[in-house]
């Protein structure tokens, strides 16, 4: 076998590799799960700021609110800070009605909003917040299971485990505190409807805020 034949065979081999590579590339395609209101909410297990391990299944039979948060995000601050303390009020109202409120932080270590358990507890105390648990989802697994895109991003799970609401906390996408009184509070409204045994008028909306810092 001389040099020229080698070259030829090399060229052919390269062509074959290209072909096969291209064929593999053309068949590979990713899929993202879509979480539809009314479908079963994905189960999860997470570590809380007090060191407990909790699962969604622990709260079977109870209505659950999931709140994605990042305390440095201006949209989160809109609902925690200022005169309205909108988020805290909603948490307190939920407590009174025996609704489980889970605040979830999906910020990865080193990213904005990532906190240690102590910092998370300190934030709850200093802001007068009243979640039942704060879940530290460093890996982002819970966030991805729910397709949580922004902070805040809100979900309501029915006692039977189905998803009853997902989306924004209210109807005015802005970072301005002054918009809170005029906005329709989607989560509150949905919880009221559900308590009255009705379907929420708005069961899905586009969440607004900072992106979740996965």
């Amino acid at each position, binding site marked *: 076998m*001389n040099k*020229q034949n080698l070259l*030829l065979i090399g*060229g*052919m081999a390269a*062509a074959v590799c*290209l*072909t096969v*590579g*291209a*064929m593999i*590339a*053309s068949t590979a*395609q*990713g899929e*993202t799960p*879509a*979480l*539809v*209101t009314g479908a079963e909410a994905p189960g999860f297990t997470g570590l809380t700021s007090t060191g407990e391990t909790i699962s969604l299944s622990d709260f079977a039979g109870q209505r659950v609110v999931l709140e994605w948060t990042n305390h*440095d*995000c*201006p*949209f989160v601050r809109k609902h925690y800070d200022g005169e309205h303390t909108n988020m805290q009020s909603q948490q307190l109202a939920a407590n009174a009605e025996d609704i489980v409120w889970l605040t979830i932080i999906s910020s990865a270590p080193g*990213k*904005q909003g990532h906190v240690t358990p102590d910092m998370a507890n300190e934030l709850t105390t200093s802001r007068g917040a009243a979640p039942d648990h704060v879940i530290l989802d460093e890996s982002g697994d819970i966030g*991805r299971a729910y*397709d949580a*895109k*922004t902070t805040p991003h809100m979900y309501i799970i029915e006692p039977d485990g189905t998803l009853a609401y*997902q989306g924004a906390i209210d109807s005015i*996408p*802005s*970072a*301005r505190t002054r918009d809170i009184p005029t906005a329709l509070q989607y989560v509150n409204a949905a919880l009221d409807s559900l308590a009255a045994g009705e379907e929420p008028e708005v069961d*899905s909306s*586009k969440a*607004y*805020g*900072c*992106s*979740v*810092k*996965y």
Partner: protein
Amino acid sequence: MMRVLIMALMALCAALSARAEPYDGGHARVELISERQVALPGETLYLALDKTLDPDWHVYWRNAGDAGLPPEIFWEDDSPLGERTRDADFTWPLPKLLPVVEGEIMDYGYDDALTLPFQVTIPEDAVGSIRFQGVADYLICKDICIPETAPVSLTIFIGEAQEPNLAHAEKIAAALASAPVPFEGEAVAMLADEETLQLSLAPGEATRLDGQTLRFFPYENEIFHALAQSQSVGANGASLNLPKDPREPLGEALAGVIAATAPDGTRTGYIIRASITDAPLAGTYGTPFRGQSGAASRTSVNLLLLAGLALLGGLVLNLMPCVLPVLTIKAMGMVSAASKGEDAHLRAHGLWYTAGVLISFAALAAAFVALRSMGEFWALGSLLQYPIIVAVLAMGAFLLGLWLLGMFEAGGSLQNLGAASANRGGVIGAFATGALAATAGAPCVGPFVGASLGAVLERPAPEVFFIYLMLGLGQALPFLVLSFVPGLARHLPKPGAWMERVKQFFAFPMFLSAAALLFVLGDQAGTGAVAWLVMGAALVAFGIWALKTAGGRLKPIAMVAGALALIGGLSLPLSTARTLDPSETSSTAYAARYETEPWSPERVAELTAEGRGVFVDFTATWCMICQANKRTTLTKPDVLAAMEAANITFLVADFTNKDPVIAEELKQRGRPGVPMYLLYGPGQHEPALLPQTLSPALMKREIAAVRAD
């Protein structure tokens, strides 16, 4: 003199007072700008919110995507602009994709800078000056997000003559020019399956998207922003498979913007409003990309037909002016071999030649499939959309021509090629010739071949390979037959001096091919690039001559000069072909770009005396309404065709620079500024004064009206 001085002072004052320093909102410098310093009462003009961002920070489009918020302006009480300016009030430049988390979170927006134009109408009763004051709210993000608030204000003087603010007008013009334009063809969207919303654009208007990569940016959130959009673009229009978000209901229409990216990176935006239907648009790529399996039987029938077409197309390729000369060389080799009765060699040659052709086509198919999987739509012919490739091919054709003429020897003479058939190296030669013939054919892909290539655009990879290989087989077939049918080769003429003459003759189709490519290059990169290429060709010819004839004492100098000329001649035109961008040509070359003539009162008189109609566009590059009208109406082929059909000549009065004759005409018609549109019916001496804002429908109506008179 005194008057000039006073006017200059006034202009300076206006410039100073109208020019507020940009406000630093934290990560962006924000400013309210206007195309005018002095405006007329009742005039509609463009203001813009102008932002320069810190590096790596971005702001958002009207639909921010998965996270983020678009900018808006809140005006103080009693503003002529109402409470606020937001959303559809702005003309949004084409947004970019801002992936936050790959495949999961996608935002739409802008980095570097953003100029957001919006229209304002000066009140009829305005006197002195008018002040716009408010607060711009915008969210600006890097890895974290900050809502910033910037107070903005602007004073515009009210006067009797328009005074542009050239720097700001230019900025606003650039923003408007890069903004998406309405897509003029038919567009529909249908649910292809539960996960796929298929957006189809009818052929015709969509054909101009051929070879471009498309991305749909929705105004609402019907689709998953972060997922890929598979697509087919070609002779059957364009079709995008958009991943439907099941949480979002569909309205009556799918509205948004399509960004079309050409192979050279140029982006064009089209505003789409696709009504939701339950049947695909006739004549488009009706089947969704993912649903290929369902259409298997239909595919296989069509595949045989396509294979036949491809084979025929390959045969025809042999007659293309760029391939023919290459084949001639091959034919000469065969004549020599046949004359010596070397049948075995002849057969080996035929086989190796075929192998060369087929492997080249397989490589092309592989490249095509690979690019397709990356979302880049690309076919053989679309290579010619890159000016640099056109330039390389033109230069290559010229060099090949020189070689055929015998100006230089490369790879041995004809006789050597013939003789080479006797030794083992000959098979490599045959293989190389096959590869060369296939490559040379690439730019010549005719409509015939294009059809079969277009048809495989959305086929699965094995079918793409099959069709490409059939094409190659078609091209190799004549030689394959010649070398395997023993009797046939003996009918070939005897070798002799005529071979050299035939070879030289084929230099001329080669030069013609180069000339044809220059036409393409001229369209793409302007006459400058063509001139550079021709100059480069002359340099190359000189270099070859210098190297060939170098001798005596001057030999080193001649060699160096020749080599330099060769390098310069080859690299210079190619670098200009790459950097020249036709879209960079100034908009003052307005009249030249579509068939118009400069305006003069005399020319109007002359034309109307001949019984022709005249349309006059009084325009200026600093007049945004003028530019908007030009884009939406005055460059539309249907409007121009209607004018031509009505025997109307299009004249342009360019008021970009001060012109007393134009100023006089404007004054006479009671219009102190541009735009002004005059339409003279055939033979009429008094024109109709058209409104300041044009539309194709309005133009056609007006043209029909003067025609009927």
